[in-house]
């Protein structure tokens, strides 16, 4: 009986994260225009590992996978060359064959390559919805079905978006072109936005599976931490984004009750908020305050911090939150920010003050179809005692609400409306 476990448990999501690392290193080596081949090669390596490793784990699993994946790419390239009867490729640009460089898989270089792929995914020519899909596939190692489930899209739609993204990359990248990371630095805002979107998919999603949502949030945090650790991404905005993510993540467990129903901030058990994550949020918030720049992530992180620091709902500094929403609305104008500002002002100065803010807003069509618009109006009218108006808005919100959890929440509100005397 062996004393040491020859095939130990792998860390959670190891294969999925390793997929991302493999695709990053391979595409850095063989070119971004060969992205799909790199993905296939990574997949091949993982498949080989399934049975091969179950009797004995190799000493360097990462290097083992890289060797298999690299050989797959070289096999395909060799076959293509035979078919096309090419003479030897342009000297120097040809990837050297066969030799496995375990050193090539050194940790720090892999991190660089992962970040490079993140920036490559943020290519301006790739439409935003395709960007998200590409990042989830290549960097996070999710399969098409898994992405479809998480983004509420059909598998066909996800396939199309992937193909579109890869085609854009083929157009913008010449063969063997591996752009140095610092030349891509001007894409940092797009990278931030993509990471923000991934986090939001996990946090705000109507996805019923809590573990899936948590996993998406974790992926966003993982990649953003990688970004913050590298000169190209170590900016105050990245720290503000991290602060925002940590503050939201801290409250993750308290947002649902025992039966999976949604709880509003007022109802949440604050003892369930993860204090360590709040602290990490505060650390990054402090770091983000260096320098003069104040981005939308700074404003949002500040608002999230106010909630996380308030011992009870009643002690929340609503005046501060209202002020931050005003700043956010100026930096990144949106009716949603005005809506949230109205809610904050209502908490601070009463429901009529909140309603006054909403009256100044000319709601666009999409906002009128968004359940939170009617839910907010309904709630504020309920608080002023106007039961009839409240019921009307809450009923419309109930129709528009996307999930059962949100519908239940609204029904509870509706039930507390003062019934008009007839």
């Amino acid at each position, binding site marked *: 009986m062996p004393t040491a476990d020859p095939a130990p448990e792998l860390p959670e999501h190891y294969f999925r994260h390793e997929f991302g690392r493999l695709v990053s290193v391979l595409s850095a080596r063989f070119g971004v225009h060969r992205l799909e081949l790199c993905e296939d090669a990574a997949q091949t390596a993982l498949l080989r590992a399934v049975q091969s490793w*179950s009797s004995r784990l190799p000493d360097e699993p990462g290097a083992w996978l890289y060797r298999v994946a690299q050989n797959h790419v070289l096999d395909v390239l060799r076959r293509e060359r035979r078919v096309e009867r090419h003479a030897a490729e342009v000297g120097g640009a040809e990837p050297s064959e066969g030799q496995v460089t375990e050193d090539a898989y050194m940790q720090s270089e892999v991190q660089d390559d992962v970040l490079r792929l993140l920036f490559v995914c943020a290519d301006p020519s790739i439409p935003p919805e395709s960007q998200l899909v590409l990042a989830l596939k290549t960097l996070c190692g999710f399969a098409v079905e898994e992405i479809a489930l998480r983004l509420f899209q059909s598998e066909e739609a996800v396939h199309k978006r992937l193909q579109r993204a890869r085609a854009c990359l083929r157009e913008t990248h010449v063969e063997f072109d591996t752009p140095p990371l610092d030349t891509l630095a001007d894409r940092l805002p797009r990278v931030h936005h993509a990471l923000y979107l991934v986090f939001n998919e996990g946090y705000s999603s109507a996805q019923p599976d809590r573990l899936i949502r948590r996993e998406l949030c974790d992926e966003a945090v993982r990649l953003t931490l990688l970004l913050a650790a590298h000169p190209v991404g170590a900016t105050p905005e990245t720290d503000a984004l991290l602060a925002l993510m940590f503050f939201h993540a801290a409250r993750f467990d308290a947002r649902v009750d025992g039966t999976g129903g949604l709880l509003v901030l007022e109802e949440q058990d604050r003892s369930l908020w993860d204090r360590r994550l709040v602290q990490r949020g505060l650390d990054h918030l402090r770091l983000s305050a260096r320098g003069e720049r104040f981005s939308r992530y700074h404003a949002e992180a500040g608002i999230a911090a106010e909630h996380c620091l308030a011992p009870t709902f009643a002690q929340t500094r609503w005046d501060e939150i209202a002020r931050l929403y005003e700043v956010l609305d100026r930096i990144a104008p949106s009716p949603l920010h005005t809506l949230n500002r109205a809610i904050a002002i209502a908490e601070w100065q009463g429901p009529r003050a909140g309603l006054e803010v909403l009256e100044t807003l000319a709601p666009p069509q999409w906002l009128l179809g968004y359940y939170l618009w009617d839910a907010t109006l309904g709630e504020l009218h309920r608080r002023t005692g106007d039961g009839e108006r409240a019921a009307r808005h809450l009923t419309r919100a109930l129709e528009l609400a996307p999930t059962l959890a949100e519908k239940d929440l609204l029904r509870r509100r509706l039930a507390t409306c003062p019934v008009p005397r007839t």
Partner: protein
Amino acid sequence: MSAPSTTNYLLLYRSPPWNPSPEEAQAAYGWWKAWMQKFSKEIINATDARGEAIGNLNPASKCVVYKAGAVTDGPYAEGKEVMAGFSFVAVDSLEQAIEIAKECPINKAPGASVEIRPLRRY
């Protein structure tokens, strides 16, 4: 240490082509690991000079048959099955070999099968 049995068995795995996500592949690794550890005394792992397991067949590779002086393509299993791999087990009876085969993770793939062939040493 008991004397090794004289009758060994070859398990041949067939399954439809498998294209798992990385997460699914990691789960499968866990099942294979558990199965191999449970029957570590019985499953004989063939390894090469590097200590790596032999026994995975490459489903994407070309399979040929040499017969009566000629090389032909094939053999093609019925439908979409491919030969996935093999293992040797050292047990004393067919019943024992079947018990091990029943728990093999290959069975999780719909349409998979395990062929159990007794071997004889001469």
